[in-house]
């Protein structure tokens, strides 16, 4: 018995030793800025690109030490990670929250410890706005506005500016911030044009299957009248295109065809844009790293920062009919898509 006990204890200490065999921490130079980043997970290409952007921005060469934690889609893990960051006395905490809710306690702890928190992507819903320093993410409404401004210019250029245009909006998951912003952009533009009519507005839940299903039912009711389908992400667009083709209609930007618009500019989405099936694809930029760094540098210099910072986003079109649109007095470029652009993109 005693012998066994000794063996077991040896095994225990070996295990403990194993967990301890780790690279010694990089020495904390006086001017290295330590950033703790708690990421949602790695559920999509978009998310992976988001992570990579942070990792390449906060690299050692740039004078940072990044402590990265993947929460595997669990808020509990993020709460634990943030508490660890606080004890490690990181200089900044970057949080891509799994959920919008449930951050009051832990953000209060960070605030008490004097560590600025920068939220990326999704917003947090907290009782006190001073619990975080800044938010970096996409301006979904502007995305919608840009897309609709492109549509306006495109139809004008094709000589259909005064024609009756019937539009369909396949919305995202109702309540998601991307859906709210993109639908707003759509609604405002339709309202501003007397000759534009919304035939149908239904949720495709951001998925290909649901997008296809919704499009099929709309085609059955009013297939011959549809001019434009506005899909609120690429997956819905794929489903909608399948449905349109299956129903015997053509997709494309010419008169008599059904024009498909989309968002997110994923690799697959842009490939469809290149083939002309999606006529315009508006970007949802996951490369948050540089914007976050900008904020951190401002804070380091003791400057004030904006509470909300949007990442720069572009839009791609199948052809060069329209290369520039204006929203609220600002010009935005619309880039005709090429294979080189697709190959050169990070996601």
């Amino acid at each position: 018995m005693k012998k066994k006990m000794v063996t077991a204890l040896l095994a225990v200490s070996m295990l403990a030793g194993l967990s301890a065999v780790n690279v010694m921490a990089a020495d904390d130079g006086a001017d290295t800025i330590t950033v703790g980043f708690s990421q949602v997970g790695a559920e999509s290409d978009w998310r992976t690109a988001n992570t990579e952007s942070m990792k390449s921005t906060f690299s050692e060469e740039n004078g940072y030490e990044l402590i990265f934690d993947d929460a595997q889609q669990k808020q509990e893990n993020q709460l634990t990670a943030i508490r660890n960051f606080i004890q490690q006395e990181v200089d900044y905490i970057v949080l891509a929250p799994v959920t919008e809710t449930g951050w009051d306690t832990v953000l209060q702890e960070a605030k008490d410890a004097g560590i600025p928190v920068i939220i990326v992507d999704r917003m947090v819903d907290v009782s006190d706005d001073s619990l975080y320093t800044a938010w970096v993410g996409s301006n979904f409404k502007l995305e919608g506005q840009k897309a609709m401004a492109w549509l306006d210019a495109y139809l004008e250029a094709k000589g259909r500016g005064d024609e009756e245009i019937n539009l369909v909006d396949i919305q995202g998951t109702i309540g998601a911030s991307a859906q709210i912003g993109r639908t707003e952009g759509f609604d405002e533009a339709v309202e501003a044009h007397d000759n534009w009519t919304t035939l149908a507005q239904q949720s495709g839940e951001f998925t290909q299957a649901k997008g296809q299903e919704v499009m099929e039912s709309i085609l059955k009711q009013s297939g011959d009248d549809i001019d434009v389908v506005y899909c609120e992400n690429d997956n819905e667009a794929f489903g909608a295109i399948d449905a349109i083709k299956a129903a015997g209609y053509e997709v494309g930007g010419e008169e008599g065809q059904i024009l498909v618009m989309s968002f997110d500019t994923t690799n697959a989405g842009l490939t469809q844009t290149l083939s002309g099936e999606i006529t315009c694809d508006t970007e949802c930029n996951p490369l948050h790293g540089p914007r976050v760094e900008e904020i951190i540098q401002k804070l380091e210099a003791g400057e004030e920062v904006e509470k909300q910072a949007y990442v720069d986003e572009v839009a791609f079109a199948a052809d060069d009919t329209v290369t520039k649109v204006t929203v609220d007095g600002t010009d935005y470029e619309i880039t005709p898509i090429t294979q080189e652009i697709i190959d050169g993109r990070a996601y």
Partner: protein
Amino acid sequence: MMKQKKKMTSSGFLLLITIVLFFAMYAAGMVIFADKGFAKPQMFLNLFVSNAGLLVISCGLTIVMITGGIDISVGSVTALVCMVMADLMENKGVSAYVAVLAALLIGLAFGVVQGFLVTYMGIQPFIVTLAGMFFGRGMTAIISTDMISIKNELFLKWANYRFYMPFGSTNKKGKFIPAYIPPTVVIAIIVVLIIAVLLKYFKFGRKLYAIGGNRQSALMMGLDVKKTMFRAYVLDGFLAGLGGFLFCLNSCAGFVEQAKGLEMDAISSAVIGGTLLSGGVGTPIGSMFGVLIKGTISSLITAQGTLSSWWVRIVLSALLCFFIVIQSVLASAKKKK
């Protein structure tokens, strides 16, 4: 009599391994990651802060596992409790006290129904609590699929209240920061102690071990097996409700996906803490150390900074294997004697 004594020593041995392992791991962390806050008392206390709810839930699970049963509904009960509390306070305008009462009642109700089905209807605990798991998660979604953020003032006051310790650490700027624990930790530790005393020194506890060790002989000794087991499930359900409340104090929100897989964390903590799945052996103190080990592994991996956090799962699985092997070695050694 001889057999009884033997069992206690094997149980004590498992507990000893768990405790040694925990301190070895933590000490290793303190040496390697001293500059990453591991040497700070708050880092240690955070193991409790982040896992207060899990501690209480693991205690409940230990109780039913000692009887040879299992409860996989606890994660869903936690989600349901959080959602009901959030919904009551935010949408129905109910006071925080009533919401807490509702949380405890939900746990109790799960315990009573599941306990009845397991003990008096003789259905497998796995199946009963699997149904409970589906029901809890389903009801959570029925109440609301939205995320509800709790903004009730009194509730947030509880959540943000701290008991400051006389010790602490100095930060980079040389400022002294006292260590603290929130009320959730105090409640969790009290619960662990109460259950530990209840199991060790009270009739109820001893009956549990007797039933788990050998149900047939417990029956023949004239123990009220069914009643005791029923009570075990009721207590387990109540602790799941209480644990859910503590969980909610940590996250201040209710939504469907919350606490997914928490039941597995609780079961693995109990097993690492020396609880036998076959029943008869286990202590709440051991399960507490099981939870602390899980917390330490994830802290070590976060501190390391570059390892994928999936390593937490891999190390845990290695530990589980290790403990199960030790358990079966002990069991076969017992048989030989």
